[in-house]
């Protein structure tokens, strides 16, 4: 099955509006395979999407790249632990809030949650910190989020984890399969929305509310216009002394204006909100 230029352009536009993602030639083949597996004729696709919102999300699942693993860019989590310890000492009248943007199958927000537990343990000798932390994670891939909520991992995804971490924060379910323990899972809430939608970001995250935002390996799939939208929303969501973590090779210097200052850390460059 092939998809005509006209239909592909339409889909491209719909996806772009919904997610900020710019899909390319390779996605065209993936899309064609998906449509034939569902027995959908490309010609009627547009109508069917209108009809059936679920189909749109299925298509989004097909075109997103969900690769991730626990403690990716590991040294950033050492920095995070230090920052969280400092916040634990200072912030007592509200929860410390961390947003994981484009959380995919959950490895990133759970790594943040484990780091939060460790920071709490370091100061107070207990992992029980549900009353102190709140981690919000979003993605636009429904399939990825379902996996994230299940919280069962194995293989590639846990290759960075030590025995000690597996024993403390996971429950083994099968020889190669580990489930994140409840006290960690309770820290994280997952939502389906796009970081480029200011309506949804205001609704789920709010203004000036996050102490840290992780947005790693997400904006690399965006064009400049979507990157700008995403960064505007992240900036609004961050508190005035908040931190932004990007993947080490990413930069926002072309779009950040005068809103973020560079901070040098052992985990590389991170960004601090300038107000």
């Amino acid at each position, binding site marked *: 099955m092939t998809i005509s230029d006209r239909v592909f352009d339409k889909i491209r536009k719909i996806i772009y509006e919904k997610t900020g993602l710019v899909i390319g030639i390779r996605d065209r083949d993936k899309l064609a395979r998906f449509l034939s597996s569902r027995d959908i004729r490309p010609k009627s696709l547009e109508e069917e999407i209108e009809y059936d919102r679920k189909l749109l999300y299925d298509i989004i699942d097909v075109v997103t790249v969900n690769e991730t693993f626990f403690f990716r860019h590991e040294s950033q989590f050492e920095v995070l632990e230090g920052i969280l310890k400092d916040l634990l000492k200072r912030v007592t009248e509200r929860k410390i809030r961390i947003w994981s943007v484009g959380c995919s199958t959950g490895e990133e927000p759970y790594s943040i949650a484990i780091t939060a537990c460790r920071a709490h343990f370091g100061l107070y000798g207990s992992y029980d910190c549900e009353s102190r932390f709140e981690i919000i994670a979003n993605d636009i891939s429904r399939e990825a989020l379902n996996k994230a909520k299940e919280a069962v991992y194995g293989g590639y995804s846990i290759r960075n984890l030590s025995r000690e971490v597996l024993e403390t924060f996971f429950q083994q379910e099968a020889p190669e399969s580990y489930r994140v323990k409840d006290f960690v899972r309770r820290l994280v809430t997952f939502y389906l929305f796009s970081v480029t939608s200011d309506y949804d970001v205001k609704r789920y995250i709010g203004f000036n509310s996050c102490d840290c935002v992780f947005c790693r390996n997400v904006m690399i799939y965006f064009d400049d216009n979507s990157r700008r939208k995403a960064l505007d929303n992240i900036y609004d969501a961050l508190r005035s002394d908040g931190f932004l973590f990007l993947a080490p090779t990413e930069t926002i*210097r072309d779009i950040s204006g005068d809103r973020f200052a560079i*901070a*040098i850390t052992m985990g*590389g460059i991170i960004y601090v909100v300038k107000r």
Partner: protein
Amino acid sequence: MNREKLLEDVKKLNKLPALPEVVYKIMLLKEEDCSLSALEGVISKDPVITAKLLKIANTVYFNPYGQSVTGLKRAIELIGVRNIFSVVLSIVVTNLFPIEAKTFYRELFWKHSFLCAFISKRLSRFVKGVSDDTAFTTGLLHDIGKLVFYSYFGDSYEKVVELTQKGIPSYLAEMRVFGVSHDEVGSVLLEVWGLPAEVVEAVRFHHTLTDSRNFSELTALVHVSNILTMLSSFSYNSGVLFVVLNDDPGWLRLKDYITDSDYEIHKIFDDVVYAIDIAEIAWSRE
């Protein structure tokens, strides 16, 4: 041992090494005629330095096309006549302190120093009036005072390390334990060794910029480079989690010279990989 006594001892080079002749010879050449063959003449008399220079000339950084270099002359050419002084200095100084203390991490110390030197040199290209060679030398020697402490006090330097792990910056911890800190001690040693006054001054104030009434560009440069070493694994746990560059007085001074300073910071971050490569090959103990 009290502060005055220690500084007195350093001035007399009690229990401390002198710089070998070859360094002064190159320093002199630098001022007069720094020709390839003159340098070769001086250096070839020292087989240890010659061997190290060959090794360094064969690293990717100096020799990207990987032709094998076997002659000293070619090695000097590749490293660059301008850079020879600082490179020789680093070879010599690395081997000068026979520190036995168990708690002295020789490799970490020199890799940190080298990285600071590399970044200083990298930044110096933007700053008018600071030569890249001087920047490199200052970066390389900025923490040399720590070696003085190790030479005199051996394992009791560990007390300082313990304090830094609690989040106290090393120079303050040293003040607390010894009554004097490595920046001051180091600058005294360098003065005795006869290094240029601007180098001595920059080392003296590399942690306490604003104590110097009117700190120099070179001081700012080394101060910032020391912070930027945090980006690698070659840095000390200074108790500081992060440094916001725009709040740093040294950076604010340098920034004006650099057109797109955020971009340059990213570039330096990328280039640090090369520096680590050279440091691994050339300055680790074989």
